[in-house]
Protein backbone atom coordinates (compact mmCIF):
# COMPACT_ATOMS: atom_id res chain seq x y z
CA UNK A 1 0.00 0.00 0.00
CA UNK A 2 1.40 3.35 -0.92
CA UNK A 3 0.84 6.42 1.10
CA UNK A 4 0.45 9.57 -0.83
CA UNK A 5 2.35 12.74 -0.03
CA UNK A 6 2.63 13.43 3.68
CA UNK A 7 -0.70 14.60 4.85
CA UNK A 8 -1.72 15.27 8.38
CA UNK A 9 -3.42 12.07 9.33
CA UNK A 10 -6.85 12.63 10.65
CA UNK A 11 -6.73 16.34 9.98
CA UNK A 12 -10.21 17.32 9.29
CA UNK A 13 -10.91 19.33 6.22
CA UNK A 14 -13.98 21.45 6.37
CA UNK A 15 -17.04 19.51 5.38
CA UNK A 16 -18.85 20.98 2.48
CA UNK A 17 -22.56 20.64 2.30
CA UNK A 18 -24.53 21.56 -0.71
CA UNK A 19 -26.21 24.93 -0.42
CA UNK A 20 -25.75 25.09 3.32
CA UNK A 21 -23.58 27.62 5.04
CA UNK A 22 -22.00 26.62 8.31
CA UNK A 23 -23.18 28.90 11.07
CA UNK A 24 -19.84 29.00 12.83
CA UNK A 25 -16.59 28.68 10.93
CA UNK A 26 -15.11 25.37 11.88
CA UNK A 27 -11.65 25.46 13.39
CA UNK A 28 -9.10 23.03 12.06
CA UNK A 29 -8.42 20.23 14.45
CA UNK A 30 -6.79 16.86 14.43
CA UNK A 31 -8.48 13.60 15.19
CA UNK A 32 -7.78 9.91 14.90
CA UNK A 33 -8.70 9.29 11.27
CA UNK A 34 -11.93 11.23 11.80
CA UNK A 35 -13.27 8.53 14.08
CA UNK A 36 -15.68 9.53 16.85
CA UNK A 37 -14.19 10.13 20.30
CA UNK A 38 -17.25 9.03 22.26
CA UNK A 39 -19.67 6.26 21.42
CA UNK A 40 -23.13 7.23 20.25
CA UNK A 41 -25.92 5.43 22.07
CA UNK A 42 -27.08 2.36 20.22
CA UNK A 43 -30.66 3.16 21.21
CA UNK A 44 -33.17 2.88 18.40
CA UNK A 45 -34.74 6.26 17.63
CA UNK A 46 -38.20 4.73 17.40
CA UNK A 47 -37.91 3.23 20.86
CA UNK A 48 -36.13 5.96 22.79
CA UNK A 49 -37.25 9.15 21.04
CA UNK A 50 -40.68 7.52 20.87
CA UNK A 51 -40.42 6.87 24.59
CA UNK A 52 -39.54 10.52 25.26
CA UNK A 53 -42.63 11.59 23.31
CA UNK A 54 -45.01 9.06 24.84
CA UNK A 55 -43.77 9.70 28.36
CA UNK A 56 -44.34 13.41 27.88
CA UNK A 57 -47.82 12.86 26.43
CA UNK A 58 -48.74 10.59 29.33
CA UNK A 59 -47.27 12.70 32.12
CA UNK A 60 -48.59 16.08 30.99
CA UNK A 61 -51.89 14.42 30.09
CA UNK A 62 -52.35 13.33 33.69
CA UNK A 63 -51.98 16.92 34.87
CA UNK A 64 -54.48 18.11 32.29
CA UNK A 65 -56.89 15.32 33.23
CA UNK A 66 -56.76 16.25 36.90
CA UNK A 67 -57.47 19.89 36.08
CA UNK A 68 -60.35 18.91 33.84
CA UNK A 69 -61.73 16.64 36.54
CA UNK A 70 -61.56 19.43 39.12
CA UNK A 71 -63.32 21.89 36.85
CA UNK A 72 -66.04 19.46 35.87
CA UNK A 73 -64.90 18.81 32.32
CA UNK A 74 -65.50 15.10 32.65
CA UNK A 75 -65.48 14.09 28.99
CA UNK A 76 -62.04 15.46 28.34
CA UNK A 77 -60.79 14.18 31.71
CA UNK A 78 -61.79 10.62 30.92
CA UNK A 79 -60.50 10.73 27.36
CA UNK A 80 -57.11 12.11 28.37
CA UNK A 81 -56.78 9.60 31.22
CA UNK A 82 -57.25 6.85 28.67
CA UNK A 83 -54.69 8.39 26.35
CA UNK A 84 -52.21 8.67 29.24
CA UNK A 85 -52.67 5.01 30.08
CA UNK A 86 -52.20 4.04 26.45
CA UNK A 87 -49.12 6.24 26.11
CA UNK A 88 -47.44 5.00 29.26
CA UNK A 89 -48.11 1.38 28.33
CA UNK A 90 -46.67 1.90 24.87
CA UNK A 91 -43.68 3.75 26.28
CA UNK A 92 -42.90 0.93 28.70
CA UNK A 93 -43.11 -1.50 25.81
CA UNK A 94 -40.70 0.67 23.81
CA UNK A 95 -38.23 0.77 26.71
CA UNK A 96 -38.33 -2.95 27.27
CA UNK A 97 -38.05 -3.57 23.56
CA UNK A 98 -34.87 -1.51 23.44
CA UNK A 99 -33.08 -3.59 26.07
CA UNK A 100 -31.03 -6.22 24.34
CA UNK A 101 -32.35 -8.65 26.94
CA UNK A 102 -35.98 -7.76 27.71
CA UNK A 103 -36.30 -10.64 30.18
CA UNK A 104 -33.94 -8.76 32.46
CA UNK A 105 -36.04 -5.63 32.80
CA UNK A 106 -36.54 -6.54 36.46
CA UNK A 107 -32.88 -5.71 37.12
CA UNK A 108 -33.88 -2.06 36.74
CA UNK A 109 -35.59 -2.32 40.11
CA UNK A 110 -32.65 -4.00 41.88
CA UNK A 111 -31.36 -0.67 43.20
CA UNK A 112 -32.48 2.94 43.42
CA UNK A 113 -29.60 5.16 42.32
CA UNK A 114 -30.07 8.94 42.34
CA UNK A 115 -26.97 9.24 40.14
CA UNK A 116 -28.70 7.23 37.43
CA UNK A 117 -31.59 9.06 35.76
CA UNK A 118 -32.58 5.75 34.22
CA UNK A 119 -32.90 4.17 37.64
CA UNK A 120 -34.88 7.13 38.98
CA UNK A 121 -37.06 6.98 35.88
CA UNK A 122 -37.76 3.28 36.26
CA UNK A 123 -39.01 3.83 39.79
CA UNK A 124 -41.00 6.87 38.71
CA UNK A 125 -42.69 4.82 36.01
CA UNK A 126 -43.24 2.05 38.52
CA UNK A 127 -45.29 4.49 40.61
CA UNK A 128 -46.84 6.47 37.81
CA UNK A 129 -47.95 3.62 35.54
CA UNK A 130 -50.32 1.94 38.03
CA UNK A 131 -51.72 5.33 39.10
CA UNK A 132 -52.44 6.34 35.52
CA UNK A 133 -53.92 2.91 34.90
CA UNK A 134 -56.23 3.06 37.91
CA UNK A 135 -57.29 6.61 37.06
CA UNK A 136 -58.23 5.58 33.54
CA UNK A 137 -60.03 2.39 34.55
CA UNK A 138 -62.08 4.08 37.25
CA UNK A 139 -63.01 6.90 34.88
CA UNK A 140 -64.09 4.57 32.10
CA UNK A 141 -66.05 2.13 34.26
CA UNK A 142 -67.40 4.73 36.64
CA UNK A 143 -66.66 2.37 39.55
CA UNK A 144 -64.74 3.23 42.73
CA UNK A 145 -64.87 7.02 42.32
CA UNK A 146 -62.81 7.59 45.46
CA UNK A 147 -59.98 5.35 44.29
CA UNK A 148 -60.24 7.08 40.95
CA UNK A 149 -59.81 10.48 42.55
CA UNK A 150 -56.77 9.37 44.53
CA UNK A 151 -55.24 7.75 41.44
CA UNK A 152 -55.94 10.86 39.37
CA UNK A 153 -54.21 13.02 41.96
CA UNK A 154 -51.24 10.64 42.23
CA UNK A 155 -50.82 10.49 38.46
CA UNK A 156 -51.02 14.27 38.25
CA UNK A 157 -48.36 14.62 40.95
CA UNK A 158 -45.94 12.21 39.29
CA UNK A 159 -46.86 13.26 35.74
CA UNK A 160 -44.65 16.36 35.50
CA UNK A 161 -41.66 14.36 36.70
CA UNK A 162 -42.36 11.61 34.16
CA UNK A 163 -42.48 14.27 31.45
CA UNK A 164 -39.23 16.00 32.39
CA UNK A 165 -36.87 13.37 33.83
CA UNK A 166 -36.19 12.10 30.31
CA UNK A 167 -34.36 15.38 29.66
CA UNK A 168 -31.96 14.52 32.48
CA UNK A 169 -31.68 11.01 31.09
CA UNK A 170 -30.41 12.40 27.80
CA UNK A 171 -28.33 15.20 29.31
CA UNK A 172 -26.42 13.00 31.76
CA UNK A 173 -24.31 11.56 28.95
CA UNK A 174 -21.17 12.67 27.18
CA UNK A 175 -23.22 13.36 24.03
CA UNK A 176 -22.30 17.00 23.28
CA UNK A 177 -25.68 18.14 21.93
CA UNK A 178 -27.48 16.74 24.97
CA UNK A 179 -25.07 17.43 27.78
CA UNK A 180 -24.32 20.89 26.46
CA UNK A 181 -28.03 21.74 26.68
CA UNK A 182 -28.56 20.21 30.10
CA UNK A 183 -30.05 23.38 31.53
CA UNK A 184 -32.55 23.97 28.73
CA UNK A 185 -33.59 20.44 27.83
CA UNK A 186 -35.93 19.94 30.82
CA UNK A 187 -37.88 23.08 29.91
CA UNK A 188 -37.99 22.05 26.26
CA UNK A 189 -39.27 18.61 27.23
CA UNK A 190 -41.87 20.13 29.58
CA UNK A 191 -43.09 22.47 26.84
CA UNK A 192 -43.17 19.69 24.28
CA UNK A 193 -45.07 17.41 26.67
CA UNK A 194 -47.59 20.19 27.32
CA UNK A 195 -48.07 20.66 23.58
CA UNK A 196 -48.69 16.93 23.13
CA UNK A 197 -51.21 16.71 25.97
CA UNK A 198 -53.01 19.85 24.84
CA UNK A 199 -53.07 18.47 21.31
CA UNK A 200 -54.55 15.21 22.52
CA UNK A 201 -57.22 17.06 24.50
CA UNK A 202 -58.12 19.17 21.46
CA UNK A 203 -58.54 16.05 19.37
CA UNK A 204 -60.70 14.16 21.85
CA UNK A 205 -62.61 16.86 23.71
CA UNK A 206 -65.84 18.58 22.72
CA UNK A 207 -65.24 22.26 21.97
CA UNK A 208 -67.07 23.51 25.05
CA UNK A 209 -64.48 21.75 27.22
CA UNK A 210 -61.34 22.67 25.30
CA UNK A 211 -60.63 26.23 26.42
CA UNK A 212 -57.84 25.21 28.86
CA UNK A 213 -56.22 23.00 26.22
CA UNK A 214 -56.18 25.90 23.79
CA UNK A 215 -54.60 28.11 26.39
CA UNK A 216 -52.00 25.44 27.27
CA UNK A 217 -51.19 24.97 23.59
CA UNK A 218 -50.29 28.63 23.22
CA UNK A 219 -48.15 28.63 26.38
CA UNK A 220 -46.41 25.45 25.21
CA UNK A 221 -45.65 26.86 21.77
CA UNK A 222 -44.08 29.97 23.26
CA UNK A 223 -42.05 28.00 25.82
CA UNK A 224 -40.97 25.45 23.22
CA UNK A 225 -39.60 28.06 20.83
CA UNK A 226 -37.90 29.95 23.67
CA UNK A 227 -36.21 26.83 25.07
CA UNK A 228 -34.89 25.72 21.68
CA UNK A 229 -33.41 29.15 21.06
CA UNK A 230 -31.83 29.31 24.50
CA UNK A 231 -30.30 25.87 24.03
CA UNK A 232 -28.88 26.78 20.64
CA UNK A 233 -27.36 29.94 22.05
CA UNK A 234 -25.56 28.11 24.82
CA UNK A 235 -24.41 25.25 22.60
CA UNK A 236 -22.20 27.45 20.42
CA UNK A 237 -20.78 25.46 17.52
CA UNK A 238 -22.55 22.30 18.71
CA UNK A 239 -25.84 24.04 17.85
CA UNK A 240 -25.06 23.09 14.25
CA UNK A 241 -26.26 19.62 15.09
CA UNK A 242 -29.68 21.08 15.91
CA UNK A 243 -29.85 22.94 12.62
CA UNK A 244 -28.39 20.58 10.08
CA UNK A 245 -29.29 17.25 8.59
CA UNK A 246 -32.08 15.08 9.89
CA UNK A 247 -32.24 16.87 13.23
CA UNK A 248 -32.51 20.26 11.53
CA UNK A 249 -35.35 19.10 9.30
CA UNK A 250 -37.23 17.56 12.21
CA UNK A 251 -36.82 20.58 14.46
CA UNK A 252 -37.90 23.00 11.74
CA UNK A 253 -40.96 20.84 11.12
CA UNK A 254 -41.58 20.75 14.86
CA UNK A 255 -41.59 24.51 15.11
CA UNK A 256 -43.99 24.94 12.19
CA UNK A 257 -46.33 22.25 13.54
CA UNK A 258 -46.35 23.39 17.17
CA UNK A 259 -46.75 27.09 16.42
CA UNK A 260 -49.21 26.39 13.60
CA UNK A 261 -51.17 24.00 15.77
CA UNK A 262 -51.35 26.44 18.66
CA UNK A 263 -52.46 29.32 16.44
CA UNK A 264 -55.08 27.17 14.73
CA UNK A 265 -56.41 25.98 18.07
CA UNK A 266 -56.41 29.45 19.61
CA UNK A 267 -58.19 31.15 16.72
CA UNK A 268 -60.43 28.41 15.41
CA UNK A 269 -60.66 26.06 18.36
CA UNK A 270 -64.35 26.59 18.86
CA UNK A 271 -64.91 24.76 15.59
CA UNK A 272 -64.47 21.05 15.92
CA UNK A 273 -62.52 20.59 12.69
CA UNK A 274 -60.05 23.37 13.50
CA UNK A 275 -59.55 21.99 17.00
CA UNK A 276 -58.81 18.52 15.65
CA UNK A 277 -56.44 19.87 13.00
CA UNK A 278 -54.61 22.01 15.56
CA UNK A 279 -54.47 19.13 18.01
CA UNK A 280 -53.01 16.73 15.49
CA UNK A 281 -50.42 19.33 14.47
CA UNK A 282 -49.43 19.80 18.12
CA UNK A 283 -49.05 16.06 18.62
CA UNK A 284 -46.97 15.69 15.48
CA UNK A 285 -44.89 18.73 16.40
CA UNK A 286 -44.14 17.34 19.83
CA UNK A 287 -43.03 14.05 18.31
CA UNK A 288 -40.81 15.91 15.83
CA UNK A 289 -39.15 17.79 18.68
CA UNK A 290 -38.23 14.55 20.47
CA UNK A 291 -36.97 12.82 17.33
CA UNK A 292 -35.09 15.98 16.36
CA UNK A 293 -33.32 16.30 19.70
CA UNK A 294 -32.50 12.60 19.52
CA UNK A 295 -31.05 12.94 16.02
CA UNK A 296 -29.00 15.99 17.04
CA UNK A 297 -27.47 13.96 19.84
CA UNK A 298 -26.48 11.12 17.54
CA UNK A 299 -24.99 13.54 15.00
CA UNK A 300 -22.96 15.27 17.71
CA UNK A 301 -21.62 11.98 19.06
CA UNK A 302 -20.56 10.67 15.68
CA UNK A 303 -18.41 13.64 14.72
CA UNK A 304 -15.25 14.04 16.83
CA UNK A 305 -15.26 17.81 16.19
CA UNK A 306 -18.21 18.26 18.55
CA UNK A 307 -16.37 16.48 21.33
CA UNK A 308 -12.89 17.92 20.83
CA UNK A 309 -13.48 21.55 19.91
CA UNK A 310 -15.76 22.52 22.81
CA UNK A 311 -13.36 20.86 25.26
CA UNK A 312 -10.48 22.76 23.71
CA UNK A 313 -12.46 25.98 23.87
CA UNK A 314 -13.24 25.39 27.55
CA UNK A 315 -9.52 25.01 28.21
CA UNK A 316 -8.77 28.42 26.75
CA UNK A 317 -6.27 29.26 24.04
CA UNK A 318 -3.51 26.69 23.45
CA UNK A 319 -0.10 27.53 24.90
CA UNK A 320 2.00 29.20 22.24
CA UNK A 321 4.66 26.87 20.85
Amino acid at each position, binding site marked *: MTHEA*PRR*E*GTRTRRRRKGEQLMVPRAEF*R*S*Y*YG*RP*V*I*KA*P*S*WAARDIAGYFFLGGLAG*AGSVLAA*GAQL*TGRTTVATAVKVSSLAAVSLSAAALIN*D*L*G*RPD*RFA*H*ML*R*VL*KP*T*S*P*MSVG*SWLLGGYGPAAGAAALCAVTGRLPRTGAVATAAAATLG*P*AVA*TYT*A*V*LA*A*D*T*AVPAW*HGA*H*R*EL*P*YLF*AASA*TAAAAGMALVVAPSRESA*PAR*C*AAVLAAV*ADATAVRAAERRLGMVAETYREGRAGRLLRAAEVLVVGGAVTAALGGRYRSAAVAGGLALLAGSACTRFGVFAA*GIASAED*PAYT*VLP*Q*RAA*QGPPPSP
Partner: protein
Amino acid sequence: MTDSLLSGPEPDPAGDAGHTDAPPRVGFFTDTSVCIGCKACEVACKEWNAIPEDGLSLTGMSYDNTGSLGASTWRHVAFIEQSAPPAAAQAPAPEGRTELPLAADPPAAGGEFRWLMSSDVCKHCTHAACLDVCPTGSLFRTEFGTVVVQEDICNGCGYCVPACPYGVIDQRPSDGRAFKCTLCYDRLGAGLEPACAKACPTESIQFGPLDELRARAALRVEQLHAAGVPDARLYGHDPEDGVGGDGAFFLLLDEPEVYGLPPDPVVTTRDLPAMWKHAGAAALSLAGGFALSFALPALLRRKGRR
Protein backbone atom coordinates in the same frame (compact mmCIF):
# COMPACT_ATOMS: atom_id res chain seq x y z
CA MET B 1 -18.51 17.94 50.76
CA THR B 2 -21.13 15.83 49.07
CA ASP B 3 -20.14 16.92 45.59
CA SER B 4 -16.71 15.34 45.91
CA LEU B 5 -18.59 12.08 45.37
CA LEU B 6 -19.66 13.32 41.92
CA SER B 7 -16.51 15.10 40.74
CA GLY B 8 -13.19 16.51 41.87
CA PRO B 9 -10.31 14.78 43.64
CA GLU B 10 -11.20 11.66 45.58
CA PRO B 11 -8.25 10.10 47.37
CA ASP B 12 -9.93 6.82 48.19
CA PRO B 13 -12.49 5.66 45.62
CA ALA B 14 -12.55 2.09 46.93
CA GLY B 15 -13.17 3.33 50.47
CA ASP B 16 -15.91 5.69 49.31
CA ALA B 17 -17.54 2.75 47.54
CA GLY B 18 -17.72 0.95 50.87
CA HIS B 19 -14.67 -1.30 50.80
CA THR B 20 -13.05 -1.42 54.20
CA ASP B 21 -9.35 -2.30 54.43
CA ALA B 22 -8.99 -1.92 50.68
CA PRO B 23 -5.56 -2.58 49.17
CA PRO B 24 -3.84 0.43 47.53
CA ARG B 25 -5.48 1.62 44.33
CA VAL B 26 -3.85 0.08 41.26
CA GLY B 27 -3.79 1.07 37.63
CA PHE B 28 -1.91 1.29 34.37
CA PHE B 29 0.71 3.71 33.20
CA THR B 30 1.00 3.36 29.44
CA ASP B 31 4.21 4.96 28.16
CA THR B 32 3.53 5.31 24.45
CA SER B 33 7.05 6.55 23.73
CA VAL B 34 8.35 2.98 23.87
CA CYS B 35 5.39 1.24 22.25
CA ILE B 36 6.39 -0.67 19.11
CA GLY B 37 2.84 -1.45 18.01
CA CYS B 38 3.31 -5.21 18.27
CA LYS B 39 -0.24 -5.70 19.60
CA ALA B 40 0.88 -8.31 22.10
CA CYS B 41 -1.38 -6.57 24.63
CA GLU B 42 -4.44 -6.80 22.39
CA VAL B 43 -3.83 -10.48 21.82
CA ALA B 44 -3.02 -11.30 25.44
CA CYS B 45 -6.18 -9.52 26.55
CA LYS B 46 -8.33 -11.43 24.08
CA GLU B 47 -6.75 -14.71 25.07
CA TRP B 48 -6.91 -14.32 28.83
CA ASN B 49 -10.41 -12.88 28.92
CA ALA B 50 -11.73 -15.21 26.20
CA ILE B 51 -13.20 -12.27 24.26
CA PRO B 52 -14.97 -13.27 21.06
CA GLU B 53 -13.71 -12.26 17.65
CA ASP B 54 -15.27 -8.98 16.56
CA GLY B 55 -14.88 -8.81 12.84
CA LEU B 56 -11.89 -9.49 10.64
CA SER B 57 -12.48 -6.80 8.08
CA LEU B 58 -9.72 -4.30 7.37
CA THR B 59 -10.36 -0.67 8.21
CA GLY B 60 -8.12 0.45 5.38
CA MET B 61 -7.03 3.61 7.15
CA SER B 62 -3.72 2.49 8.61
CA TYR B 63 -2.05 -0.55 10.16
CA ASP B 64 -4.73 -0.26 12.82
CA ASN B 65 -7.30 -2.86 11.94
CA THR B 66 -9.10 -2.86 15.24
CA GLY B 67 -10.33 0.72 14.95
CA SER B 68 -11.37 1.51 18.50
CA LEU B 69 -12.09 0.10 21.90
CA GLY B 70 -15.31 -1.83 22.07
CA ALA B 71 -17.24 -4.60 23.74
CA SER B 72 -14.84 -7.17 22.33
CA THR B 73 -11.67 -5.05 22.18
CA TRP B 74 -10.46 -4.07 25.62
CA ARG B 75 -6.98 -2.99 24.53
CA HIS B 76 -6.61 -1.12 21.28
CA VAL B 77 -3.33 -0.09 19.71
CA ALA B 78 -3.63 3.17 17.80
CA PHE B 79 -1.25 3.75 14.86
CA ILE B 80 -0.66 7.33 13.81
CA GLU B 81 1.48 7.99 10.76
CA GLN B 82 2.72 11.55 10.91
CA SER B 83 4.99 13.82 9.05
CA ALA B 84 6.14 16.05 11.83
CA PRO B 85 8.42 19.05 11.83
CA PRO B 86 12.01 17.93 12.61
CA ALA B 87 12.01 19.16 16.20
CA ALA B 88 8.90 17.26 17.16
CA ALA B 89 9.97 14.13 15.32
CA GLN B 90 12.81 13.41 17.69
CA ALA B 91 11.82 10.06 18.99
CA PRO B 92 13.81 8.87 21.98
CA ALA B 93 16.87 6.88 20.99
CA PRO B 94 15.83 3.26 20.73
CA GLU B 95 17.42 1.33 23.55
CA GLY B 96 18.21 -1.89 21.81
CA ARG B 97 14.66 -2.30 20.62
CA THR B 98 13.55 -3.40 17.22
CA GLU B 99 13.39 -0.36 15.01
CA LEU B 100 10.54 0.06 12.63
CA PRO B 101 11.78 0.41 9.06
CA LEU B 102 9.64 3.47 8.47
CA ALA B 103 10.96 5.29 11.49
CA ALA B 104 14.50 4.37 10.46
CA ASP B 105 14.48 6.05 7.10
CA PRO B 106 12.67 9.36 7.15
CA PRO B 107 11.50 10.92 3.90
CA ALA B 108 13.30 14.05 2.83
CA ALA B 109 10.66 16.74 2.31
CA GLY B 110 8.21 18.23 4.78
CA GLY B 111 9.91 17.24 7.98
CA GLU B 112 10.35 13.73 9.24
CA PHE B 113 8.04 10.78 9.20
CA ARG B 114 7.16 9.25 12.46
CA TRP B 115 4.88 6.66 13.88
CA LEU B 116 2.99 7.19 17.08
CA MET B 117 1.66 4.04 18.66
CA SER B 118 -0.42 3.91 21.75
CA SER B 119 -2.20 1.08 23.49
CA ASP B 120 -5.52 2.46 24.70
CA VAL B 121 -7.67 0.95 27.41
CA CYS B 122 -10.52 1.77 29.81
CA LYS B 123 -9.37 4.61 32.04
CA HIS B 124 -10.92 3.23 35.26
CA CYS B 125 -11.88 6.81 36.08
CA THR B 126 -11.93 8.08 39.65
CA HIS B 127 -15.40 9.42 38.84
CA ALA B 128 -16.67 6.90 36.32
CA ALA B 129 -19.70 8.13 34.41
CA CYS B 130 -20.44 4.59 33.24
CA LEU B 131 -20.70 3.43 36.83
CA ASP B 132 -22.66 6.46 38.01
CA VAL B 133 -25.40 6.12 35.42
CA CYS B 134 -25.77 2.32 35.39
CA PRO B 135 -29.33 1.72 36.64
CA THR B 136 -28.82 -1.89 37.69
CA GLY B 137 -25.66 -1.62 39.76
CA SER B 138 -24.01 -3.97 37.31
CA LEU B 139 -21.02 -1.64 37.06
CA PHE B 140 -19.21 -1.44 40.37
CA ARG B 141 -16.02 -0.20 42.00
CA THR B 142 -13.71 -2.99 43.09
CA GLU B 143 -11.55 -3.06 46.20
CA PHE B 144 -8.60 -2.16 43.92
CA GLY B 145 -10.33 1.07 42.90
CA THR B 146 -11.06 -0.20 39.39
CA VAL B 147 -14.38 -0.29 37.52
CA VAL B 148 -15.88 -3.63 36.49
CA VAL B 149 -19.15 -4.80 34.83
CA GLN B 150 -20.95 -7.82 36.26
CA GLU B 151 -22.19 -9.72 33.26
CA ASP B 152 -25.04 -11.45 35.02
CA ILE B 153 -26.57 -8.20 36.28
CA CYS B 154 -26.23 -6.02 33.16
CA ASN B 155 -29.59 -5.87 31.42
CA GLY B 156 -28.41 -4.33 28.20
CA CYS B 157 -29.94 -0.89 28.66
CA GLY B 158 -26.85 0.65 27.06
CA TYR B 159 -26.89 3.79 29.20
CA CYS B 160 -23.22 3.45 30.13
CA VAL B 161 -22.22 3.62 26.44
CA PRO B 162 -22.94 7.31 25.70
CA ALA B 163 -22.11 8.22 29.30
CA CYS B 164 -18.42 7.31 29.03
CA PRO B 165 -16.53 10.47 28.04
CA TYR B 166 -13.78 8.33 26.48
CA GLY B 167 -15.98 6.14 24.29
CA VAL B 168 -14.71 2.97 25.94
CA ILE B 169 -17.56 0.73 27.02
CA ASP B 170 -19.86 -0.77 24.41
CA GLN B 171 -22.62 -3.28 23.95
CA ARG B 172 -21.96 -6.55 22.17
CA PRO B 173 -24.35 -6.49 19.23
CA SER B 174 -25.24 -10.17 19.43
CA ASP B 175 -25.95 -10.00 23.13
CA GLY B 176 -26.89 -6.47 24.11
CA ARG B 177 -24.91 -6.48 27.33
CA ALA B 178 -22.03 -4.09 27.94
CA PHE B 179 -18.42 -5.18 28.23
CA LYS B 180 -15.08 -3.48 28.83
CA CYS B 181 -11.66 -3.92 30.38
CA THR B 182 -11.83 -5.33 33.92
CA LEU B 183 -8.17 -4.60 34.59
CA CYS B 184 -8.05 -8.40 34.87
CA TYR B 185 -10.00 -8.41 38.13
CA ASP B 186 -9.60 -12.18 38.31
CA ARG B 187 -5.80 -11.98 38.00
CA LEU B 188 -5.52 -9.14 40.53
CA GLY B 189 -7.40 -11.22 43.05
CA ALA B 190 -4.79 -13.95 42.59
CA GLY B 191 -1.91 -11.51 43.01
CA LEU B 192 -1.00 -11.45 39.31
CA GLU B 193 -0.59 -8.46 37.03
CA PRO B 194 -3.04 -7.92 34.13
CA ALA B 195 -2.42 -9.97 31.01
CA CYS B 196 -1.62 -6.98 28.77
CA ALA B 197 1.06 -5.63 31.11
CA LYS B 198 2.53 -9.10 31.45
CA ALA B 199 2.68 -9.53 27.68
CA CYS B 200 4.06 -6.11 26.77
CA PRO B 201 7.65 -6.66 25.57
CA THR B 202 8.77 -3.03 25.95
CA GLU B 203 7.18 -2.21 29.29
CA SER B 204 5.08 0.35 27.53
CA ILE B 205 2.24 -0.93 29.72
CA GLN B 206 3.17 -0.73 33.38
CA PHE B 207 0.95 -1.98 36.16
CA GLY B 208 1.12 -1.17 39.86
CA PRO B 209 -0.11 1.01 42.70
CA LEU B 210 -1.28 4.29 41.21
CA ASP B 211 0.92 6.50 43.41
CA GLU B 212 4.02 4.62 42.37
CA LEU B 213 3.04 4.82 38.71
CA ARG B 214 2.46 8.57 38.94
CA ALA B 215 5.91 9.11 40.41
CA ARG B 216 7.48 6.91 37.76
CA ALA B 217 5.60 8.74 35.00
CA ALA B 218 6.72 12.16 36.23
CA LEU B 219 10.33 10.98 36.11
CA ARG B 220 9.92 9.60 32.62
CA VAL B 221 8.50 12.87 31.28
CA GLU B 222 11.41 14.79 32.76
CA GLN B 223 13.81 12.34 31.22
CA LEU B 224 12.23 12.71 27.80
CA HIS B 225 12.17 16.51 28.01
CA ALA B 226 15.85 16.46 28.91
CA ALA B 227 16.51 14.12 25.98
CA GLY B 228 14.98 16.71 23.63
CA VAL B 229 11.44 15.41 23.24
CA PRO B 230 9.52 18.54 24.22
CA ASP B 231 6.17 17.11 23.13
CA ALA B 232 6.14 14.37 25.77
CA ARG B 233 3.25 14.91 28.14
CA LEU B 234 1.14 12.99 30.61
CA TYR B 235 -2.55 12.45 30.03
CA GLY B 236 -5.12 11.47 32.64
CA HIS B 237 -2.68 11.55 35.57
CA ASP B 238 -4.08 14.65 37.27
CA PRO B 239 -6.56 14.03 40.15
CA GLU B 240 -7.82 17.59 39.62
CA ASP B 241 -9.07 16.92 36.09
CA GLY B 242 -12.67 16.49 34.94
CA VAL B 243 -12.90 12.85 35.93
CA GLY B 244 -10.87 13.08 39.13
CA GLY B 245 -7.90 11.46 37.42
CA ASP B 246 -7.69 8.19 35.53
CA GLY B 247 -6.76 4.84 36.96
CA ALA B 248 -5.13 4.21 33.59
CA PHE B 249 -3.07 7.15 32.36
CA PHE B 250 -0.70 7.75 29.50
CA LEU B 251 2.48 9.38 28.32
CA LEU B 252 1.74 10.84 24.90
CA LEU B 253 3.94 12.47 22.27
CA ASP B 254 1.24 14.68 20.75
CA GLU B 255 -2.14 16.17 21.60
CA PRO B 256 -4.66 13.65 23.01
CA GLU B 257 -7.11 14.13 20.13
CA VAL B 258 -4.47 12.89 17.69
CA TYR B 259 -4.76 9.54 19.46
CA GLY B 260 -8.57 9.72 19.47
CA LEU B 261 -8.71 10.79 23.11
CA PRO B 262 -10.83 13.72 24.36
CA PRO B 263 -8.61 16.67 25.36
CA ASP B 264 -10.51 17.59 28.52
CA PRO B 265 -13.20 15.06 29.43
CA VAL B 266 -15.62 15.75 32.27
CA VAL B 267 -17.72 13.23 34.15
CA THR B 268 -21.23 14.37 33.24
CA THR B 269 -22.61 13.51 36.68
CA ARG B 270 -20.72 16.59 37.87
CA ASP B 271 -23.67 18.58 36.51
CA LEU B 272 -26.32 16.16 37.74
CA PRO B 273 -27.45 18.28 40.72
CA ALA B 274 -28.01 21.20 38.33
CA MET B 275 -29.87 18.93 35.93
CA TRP B 276 -32.22 17.61 38.59
CA LYS B 277 -32.78 21.15 39.80
CA HIS B 278 -33.76 22.34 36.33
CA ALA B 279 -35.90 19.26 35.78
CA GLY B 280 -37.70 20.04 39.03
CA ALA B 281 -38.25 23.62 38.00
CA ALA B 282 -39.44 22.47 34.58
CA ALA B 283 -41.85 20.01 36.17
CA LEU B 284 -43.23 22.78 38.37
CA SER B 285 -43.61 25.11 35.42
CA LEU B 286 -45.45 22.38 33.54
CA ALA B 287 -47.90 22.08 36.41
CA GLY B 288 -48.07 25.87 36.71
CA GLY B 289 -48.73 26.23 33.01
CA PHE B 290 -51.72 23.95 33.24
CA ALA B 291 -52.99 25.71 36.36
CA LEU B 292 -52.84 28.97 34.45
CA SER B 293 -54.57 27.37 31.47
CA PHE B 294 -57.48 26.35 33.66
CA ALA B 295 -57.60 29.61 35.58
CA LEU B 296 -57.53 31.98 32.60
CA PRO B 297 -60.65 30.70 30.80
CA ALA B 298 -62.54 30.71 34.11
CA LEU B 299 -61.52 34.31 34.79
CA LEU B 300 -62.41 35.38 31.29
CA ARG B 301 -65.79 33.71 31.52
CA ARG B 302 -66.52 35.44 34.82
CA LYS B 303 -65.53 38.77 33.34
CA GLY B 304 -67.71 38.05 30.32
CA ARG B 305 -70.69 37.34 32.54
CA ARG B 306 -70.36 40.54 34.52
